[in-house]
């Protein structure tokens, strides 16, 4: 049977292959999209080599053709302002890595617990805890009680209240409620809590320190880690864990030997996401740091606040050095983000 030109062009020869015409269209779209995605990076890169005149006198695209590249912006940041740049860079690395490590470690253990154990806290006890803690905060804020004393007293009061009244409450919460409560902490926009957080760290004199920003980032990223890892942990067949227990492993041994290796693709993806979020975070860093703990996003933003107008070239330099660690981390982690890890675990 004779096939027409159109059929030859667009009818796939088999279910696995694409017709030549389709292939051309698909690759054209992909090429366009690649260029579309990569262009901003290219633009930032060449802008970092432009002089003020090249930037302001209209778009120029090709180095050596359209304009003469110069290293003035690089020099400015790495020679004249070297210590400022380095300090921001080191701050960013310390803060992002610590916050990522803390939230991934704590978060994955928390979400494993949620995936495997059943919790049934009594609603009334949880409510009491919130009440007591509000009381403790009021005592600190309103009556100037020392915060350490107030917290300790709050915990003690809660303990005795819970012991005395706890069993009278009937309504219970479940794992689903806890999980939703966690994620609701992330749904809440950070702008809402930024002032309270600021005041809290002011109260304990931790403003403009690494620890304040690390703690804050850890807390805001925990819900994401818990939410993402929960899915990975529940997808691991419980048989494997029971079998490891019978083989003699402790609870932690099961987590370490079986659960962690099997969820490493999830861990890699989550780590990358949390790392990027912490690395790029601006709003909280703006409030919590003034000079010593300043991070890279603050440095970038500072480039448009000078009396010389927006320093596009300097900003581009900072952006480029800023994306390098994330790219490196992505390259390292992407080989762990693979599918089919659980293949062969169960069934014949």
């Amino acid at each position, binding site marked *: 049977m004779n096939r027409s030109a159109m059929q030859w062009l667009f009818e796939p020869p088999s279910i696995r292959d694409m017709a030549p015409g389709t292939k051309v269209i698909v690759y054209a779209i992909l090429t366009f999209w690649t260029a579309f995605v990569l262009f901003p990076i290219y633009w930032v890169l060449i802008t970092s080599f432009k002089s003020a005149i090249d930037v302001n006198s209209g778009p120029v695209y090709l180095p050596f053709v359209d304009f003469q590249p110069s290293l003035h912006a690089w020099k400015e940041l790495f020679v004249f302002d070297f210590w400022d740049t380095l300090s921001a860079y080191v701050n960013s690395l310390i803060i992002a890595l610590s916050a990522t490590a803390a939230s991934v470690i704590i978060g994955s253990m928390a979400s494993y617990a949620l995936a495997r154990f059943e919790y049934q806290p009594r609603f009334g006890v949880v409510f009491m805890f919130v009440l007591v803690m509000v009381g403790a905060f009021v005592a600190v804020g309103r009556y100037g009680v020392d915060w350490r004393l107030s917290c300790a007293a709050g915990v003690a009061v809660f303990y005795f209240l819970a012991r005395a009244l706890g069993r009278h409450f009937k309504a219970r919460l479940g794992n689903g409620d806890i999980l939703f409560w966690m994620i609701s902490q992330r749904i809440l926009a950070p702008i809402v809590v930024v002032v309270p957080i600021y005041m809290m760290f002011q109260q304990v004199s931790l403003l403009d320190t690494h620890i304040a920003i690390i703690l804050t980032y850890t807390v805001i990223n925990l819900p994401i880690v818990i939410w993402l890892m929960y899915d990975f942990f529940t997808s691991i067949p419980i048989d494997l864990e029971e079998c490891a227990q*019978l*083989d003699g492993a402790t609870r932690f041994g099961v987590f370490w030997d079986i659960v962690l290796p*099997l969820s490493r693709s999830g861990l890699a993806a989550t780590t990358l996401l949390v790392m990027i979020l912490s690395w790029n975070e601006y709003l909280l860093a703006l409030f919590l740091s003034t000079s010593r703990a300043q991070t890279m996003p603050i440095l970038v933003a500072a480039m448009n606040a000078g009396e010389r107008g927006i320093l596009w070239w300097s900003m581009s330099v900072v952006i480029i050095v800023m994306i390098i660690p994330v790219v490196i981390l992505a390259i390292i982690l992407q080989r762990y983000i693979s599918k089919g890890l659980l293949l*062969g*675990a*169960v*069934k*014949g």
Partner: protein
Amino acid sequence: MTVVLDAVSKSFGSVKVLHELSLEVQDGEFLVLLGASGSGKSTALRMIAGLETVSEGRISISGQDVTDALPKNRDVAMVFQSYALYPHKTVAENIGYPLKIRRMNRAEIESQVREVAAQVRIDELLERYPRELSGGQRQRVALARAMVRRPSVFLMDEPLSNLDAKLRGHMRAELKHMQHELGITTIYVTHDQVEAMTLAHRVALLEGGRLQQLAAPKTIYEDPENLFVAQFIGSPPMNVAHGRLDAGTFVIGKDRVVTGGTETVANAVIGLRAEDCQVVPPEDGAIRAQLFANELIGDHTLVTAKVGDDMVSIKAPKEFEAGFDEAIGIAFATDKLYLFDKDTGARIRRT
């Protein structure tokens, strides 16, 4: 080692899935927990393993109370229905895992893994990952991992049910041989009565969370305690016909069968194994029946006939031929028949 269950019960919320199960498994015995799904057999096994808490009663292994002990402190090994191989570990690492946890040195682990692997004939597969193995091979790996540390007790939860029929028969024989060689007490859960009958020293038949009978396969087949056991064991299941027992004579429609006893029971059930019946001309049979279908199986013909409202199966010689709806008679020796009380299900033993 011995395993003793003393009136063990299990409830999930308000649902009681196991009622006061008491068992005593002897040292080196192969005990099969047999039952349909939902009979509580897997729950019982998981309680012995320590994977489920015990609601009531005590469990002890080799004389030690382990009711509240952690799984790892019970010295039991379990083969799961799903095999539960660690997918990120090679076959050798899978088998060696229980030893690694016990901090055995590397050389020792390797030699023991090799030894066990040779026993179940997977020594060429040690470097492979579970995903690269066939169902039968995975099964052997799971078995080897359970064997490697010489536990006091083997627990097996339907280990053969994911294999195809041919392989299952083969593995069954291997399992039986291996258990005999190792001499390790084994508790084996299955819903397959053929597995139970062929493997077990003793079978514990469970239904609705209650132990129906605990006996050797031969006893459980030839001397069932109640109607449930009689109908669960045997292929085809035991034939039953409903009627009444009148001073030792079983009345079924117009037929009267002298049973040799003296009891009177209003709702009674007569039971007969297919192989204990013969098809005879209608006038010679103790019970008259109407032929429903006959199927040539190979070495015999399976005749299905209607007795009143009940269907019965009879094993007839392979030469047997008859038309549909033909009247036939069923003959049997009186000592081959079983009588049950319909209301309680209990066996009526002739006095």
